[in-house]
């Protein structure tokens, strides 16, 4: 039942969102919402930290942008770009999942840089430093409103698909790997294979988001494939909290809103963001979603189920 309510709440958010935030901002929030929620499949559910998600976001944005520039229709560009990031994620994942922990972080980070420089040098295709410009939105989603509706529908589609994955047996295997990889191996699961699947799912949906991103400002800026973007993706996800399915979405909304707001107030706003991140890590490791949850619990201690989840989270963190 609860899931149903949350789903309704999410729908309400999609309707209310455009009144809370400027249109371009809320659209971008939804797109990065897909990124963060899917990254959480890998980060929160499977316990793998990839520092190279911008690679898939950017590559897919380039593919979709190039196809649109080449005159292909949108309903072809988006699936092919998504498929493209799926294939690349299998290739890169194959090398990366062999390693664990820090080495996995280093590898994904380094792959990200490699793709960044490919995009940077390959000017004839990607536009290099200038970015890929002049991508036109199809007429039927050209207004801000129709484009928002389009993005919201894609967002819902992605969220439902990801939710199905999380609640399927596959999702349970991911959690098992996170909790105890050697046990999973002992039971007979091929841990590397499932890690690769998890990596691919996250990367494919990140790619889907990338293929939508190109439509917002009719271009692919080169910074969307830079490793700093990968950092942003991780921070948004962690900021929201990896403990719940929709937590990362709050992270995205908070992160984009805070960075836009602080950047108006003080030119040295990254300092404030740094302080907030540090505080989150040291004191509110569950992210904003857990913070809100705790605040809520203080006022009305009714939720019994969350305690159980709390336990799961604590075992993960300790």
């Amino acid at each position, binding site marked *: 039942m609860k899931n149903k309510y949350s789903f309704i709440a999410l729908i309400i958010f999609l309707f209310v969102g455009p009144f809370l935030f400027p249109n371009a901002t809320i659209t971008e929030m939804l797109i990065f919402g897909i990124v963060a929620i899917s990254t959480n499949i890998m980060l929160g559910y499977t316990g793998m*930290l990839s520092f190279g998600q911008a690679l898939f976001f950017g590559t897919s944005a380039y593919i979709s942008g190039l196809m649109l520039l080449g005159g292909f229709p949108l309903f072809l560009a988006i699936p092919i770009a998504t498929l493209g990031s799926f294939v690349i994620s299998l290739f890169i994942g194959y090398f990366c999942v062999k390693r664990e922990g820090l*080495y996995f972080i*280093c590898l994904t980070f*380094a792959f990200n840089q490699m793709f960044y420089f490919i995009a940077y040098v390959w000017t004839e295709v990607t536009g290099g430093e200038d970015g890929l410009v002049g991508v036109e939105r199809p007429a039927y989603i050209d207004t801000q409103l129709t484009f928002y509706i389009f993005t919201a529908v894609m967002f819902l589609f992605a969220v439902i698909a990801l939710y199905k994955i999380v609640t399927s047996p596959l999702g349970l295997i991911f959690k098992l790997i996170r909790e105890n990889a050697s046990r999973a191996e002992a039971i007979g699961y091929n841990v590397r294979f499932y890690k690769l699947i998890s990596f691919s799912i996250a990367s494919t949906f990140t790619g889907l988001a990338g293929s939508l991103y190109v439509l917002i400002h009719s271009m692919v800026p080169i910074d969307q494939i830079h490793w700093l973007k990968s*950092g942003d993706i991780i921070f948004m996800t*962690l900021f929201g909290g990896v403990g719940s399915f929709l937590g990362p979405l709050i992270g995205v909304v908070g992160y984009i809103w805070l960075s836009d707001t602080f950047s108006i107030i003080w030119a040295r706003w*990254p300092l404030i963001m*740094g302080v907030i*991140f540090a505080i989150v890590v040291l004191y509110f490791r569950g992210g904003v979603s857990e913070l809100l949850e705790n605040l809520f619990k203080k006022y009305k201690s009714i939720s019994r189920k969350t305690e159980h989840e709390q336990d799961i989270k604590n075992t993960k*963190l300790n």
Partner: protein
Amino acid sequence: MTFLIISQILNGLGLGMLYALVGVGLTLILGVLNIPNFAHGVLYALGAYLAFTIANVTGSFYFAMFLSPLLVVLVGFILESQGVRRLYHAHHDYQLLFLFACALIIQEIIIIIWGPIGFSLLAPPSLSGAVDLGFLIYPKYRLVLICFAFFMIVCLYLFLTKTNLGAILRAGIENRDMVKVLGINVNVVFLYTFGLGAYLAGLAGALSAPIMGLTPSMGLDILPICFVVVVVAGLGSIPGAIIAGILIGLSQGAATIWFPEATNVVIYVMMGLTIIFRPQGLFGVR
């Protein structure tokens, strides 16, 4: 052509020595503490900025080179004892988030203190200008840099292989639990390791300042290179990091002769080849 190649080898060596210094620092922190130190680049930047200010205030370049890395160690100690220490049991994601947050904070503090515009730090008159080696003219400071960095690397190597603390550090990379079992205070070991890593980053930053100048973003520029050094070397291998650093510097030098546009790409090509043909890194065991 010969003199071109020789000068490129010298250039590559100079650059490679700097990479080796920061790379070894990162390897130590990664290996012993098992945390992704995303604040490593900003410690490098801090080393350069502190050296700049000390050199301007005291008028002594050498004193600046001596003191600034030590001040960076102090910052490293603060980072370790106030933040990182509480995160050893947390997942890498939180460690990364925290260290990156520290990097943001320190970088912005650099901008607040020193301003967003870059500076030059001049080498002292005794080290500036060029020397005629007979077959080519080469800046004095760079030659000194190569020799000094080499000397530091030898010192570091002796420290790690000939002293007790060095042995503990190496043991920590091999097997952290073993160190605990032996009854050694792990907290102190971790603190010193982080300090040593910070020292090397700060030193490299200070040494690079007369060549590359100072900018607030210099830390972000060097960070990916540090990680590539670690990947090519193999996680936790100190000799590996030294050799990988120098190799990367040399290959960048070589690239400028034949494909000048690709001087940045060559780093990642090397890394890609390593991943494909020797996934554990050149000297990696794990």
